[in-house]
């Protein structure tokens, strides 16, 4: 009958169980770390094959810059997939937000920071609204995420074309293209857009892994019914997460405008699938409850490095798609084995490592 809502009993000595006996063994059991090893191997292979061109900074800078916008999208997708959902609409929301933002900036005129800032806010708000629509339909109307976001994928792209009559807008404030688009961090050769993306990734990585919002994201994906029973506001959590994904797609719309100087309406048809592939390659389970922001970032670099490397060593870049497809299936295969092992109830001892894929008998 104690009033404090605390477990009873006196506090015991700090437990030592939190520390794993073998840090390295634990590390290699984490899928995002395994996939990092794959990335490093790919990197080393290209370095050996093209030692003068591939590993130099100009080239790496190019890869990093190419990944930046996808990284912003990957944040939202990581949250969404951890809840065992999916968001197919991000590419279309990116385009729609870019179009509306470009229209507004066009109407205001000028190419200074004032206009650009309005454009930024407009892009994020428009993306947020699409995300809220997704979230509401998924959490309240109980329509499956795949269908809801397939619907908004079509709707957002169609409306973007209605607004523009299908003709890309090519007027973007020069401050945006000069700074975010192609500019570097002052005094360095690091792309500004990449630094921006990194900051956002780190912030949301901390939110995902250290805060209550992040914990509830995992809880909803792990056992929605259990989360509901202990009082987690599951619907609100889902709506927030899809809204986040939408808002980040809106931001990515402005980044895309800055980088390419055009709304590129037709240029995002594969974006959603590329981002989903990256998230899954990075070890986030499509069945929910499991995933890391770090893994998603590693997962984004694998296709990017493959594409870049194939071009450099003279392999047809189409092979990139083949390779990414194979990595994707392998990643999900590992995830399945890991889940099966966990379901057998043997815990950490049965973690599937890459090495166990080569040895058939354990």
């Amino acid at each position, binding site marked *: 009958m104690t009033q404090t809502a605390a477990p009873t009993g006196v506090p*015991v000595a700090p437990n030592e*169980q939190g520390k794993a006996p073998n840090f390295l063994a634990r590390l290699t059991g984490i899928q995002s770390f395994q996939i990092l090893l794959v990335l490093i191997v790919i990197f080393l292979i290209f370095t050996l094959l093209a030692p003068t061109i591939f590993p130099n900074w100009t080239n790496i800078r190019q890869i990093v810059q190419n990944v930046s916008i996808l990284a912003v999208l990957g944040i939202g997708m990581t949250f969404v997939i951890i809840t065992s959902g999916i968001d197919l609409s991000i590419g279309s929301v990116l385009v729609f937000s870019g179009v509306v933002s470009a229209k507004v900036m066009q109407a205001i005129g000028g190419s200074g920071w004032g206009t650009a800032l309005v454009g930024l806010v407009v892009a994020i708000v428009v993306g947020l609204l699409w995300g809220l629509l997704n979230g509401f339909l998924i959490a309240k109307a109980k329509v499956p995420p795949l269908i809801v976001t397939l619907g908004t994928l079509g709707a957002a792209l169609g409306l973007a074309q209605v607004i523009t009559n299908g003709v890309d807008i090519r007027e973007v404030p020069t401050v945006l293209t000069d700074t975010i688009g192609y500019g570097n961090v002052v005094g360095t050769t690091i792309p500004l857009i990449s630094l921006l993306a990194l900051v956002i990734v780190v912030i949301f990585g901390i939110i995902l892994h250290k805060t209550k919002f992040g914990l509830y994201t995992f*809880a909803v994906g792990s056992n929605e019914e259990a989360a509901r029973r202990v009082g987690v506001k599951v619907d609100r959590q889902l709506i927030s997460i899809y809204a986040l994904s939408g808002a980040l797609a809106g931001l990515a719309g402005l980044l895309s405008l800055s980088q390419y100087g055009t709304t590129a309406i037709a240029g995002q048809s594969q974006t959603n699938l590329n981002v989903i592939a990256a998230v899954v390659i990075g070890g986030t389970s499509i069945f929910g409850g499991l995933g890391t922001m770090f893994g998603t970032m590693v997962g984004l670099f694998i296709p990017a490095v493959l594409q870049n490397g194939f071009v450099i060593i003279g392999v047809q870049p189409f092979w990139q798609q083949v390779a990414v497809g194979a990595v994707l299936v392998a990643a999900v295969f590992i995830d399945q084995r890991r889940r099966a092992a966990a379901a057998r109830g043997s815990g950490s001892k049965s973690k599937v490592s890459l090495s166990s894929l080569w040895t058939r008998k354990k």
Partner: protein
Amino acid sequence: MTSTIPILEARGLTRSFGAVRALDHVDFDINAGEVVALIGDNGAGKSTLVKALSGNLALDSGEIRYAGGVVDLNSTTAASKLGIETVFQDLALAPHLNPAQNMFLGREIPAPGVLGKLGFLDTKAMRLRSKAAFDDLGATVRSMTDPVGGMSGGQRQAIAIARAVAWAKGVIFLDEPTAALGVVQTKNVLETIRRVRDKGVGVVFISHNMPNVIEVADRVQVLRLGRRIATFEAKKTNMEELVAAMTGALDGAGA
């Protein structure tokens, strides 16, 4: 028994699922600091009654009183606020979260100061208090950092029970708490039930294990076909009588 106000009391609860009347004007009562065993054959309405009394089921009619006052248990949150906790047969744990995270899910301890306002959590405090709660229960939880999905059925059950015990201030429902447990763990759970009772909490214990029921319960209430058909003092009854009541051989008898 009649002089005290029951901590939780149900009168005439009715709930139908289509043509099936799962609860048929069922009554139930439990006092603070008492262990009441709820028994009945499969389909007697035990789980439905527990759901209704823990805020997991809407009722067609009937009245629930908590410490004498009529309450509306329309959600688990409402039940939790009153201090009613439930351990369901499916345990309601999030398999990917660790024991401490499950223990405090929905009731996290925020980090001190401004970090807590930003949504950061005091993971260490939650881990220590969870550990203390598990030790209190005599439960061996192997790791505080591994996901519970990889743990044995007994460990998961211990975590779910420890969670309910830690938060229950009024009544705790245990739906088949010993079904997946070994001999030693079962003993621990029965011991826990007594200890929780001694703190003044009402414990509702649902079980098919009659020796356990007779061992730990103060009173035994028997459900059949959605009604309470008998109440026994555990000290004055025996297994034959209970089984007879459950199967209907004693219809109309008892309190």
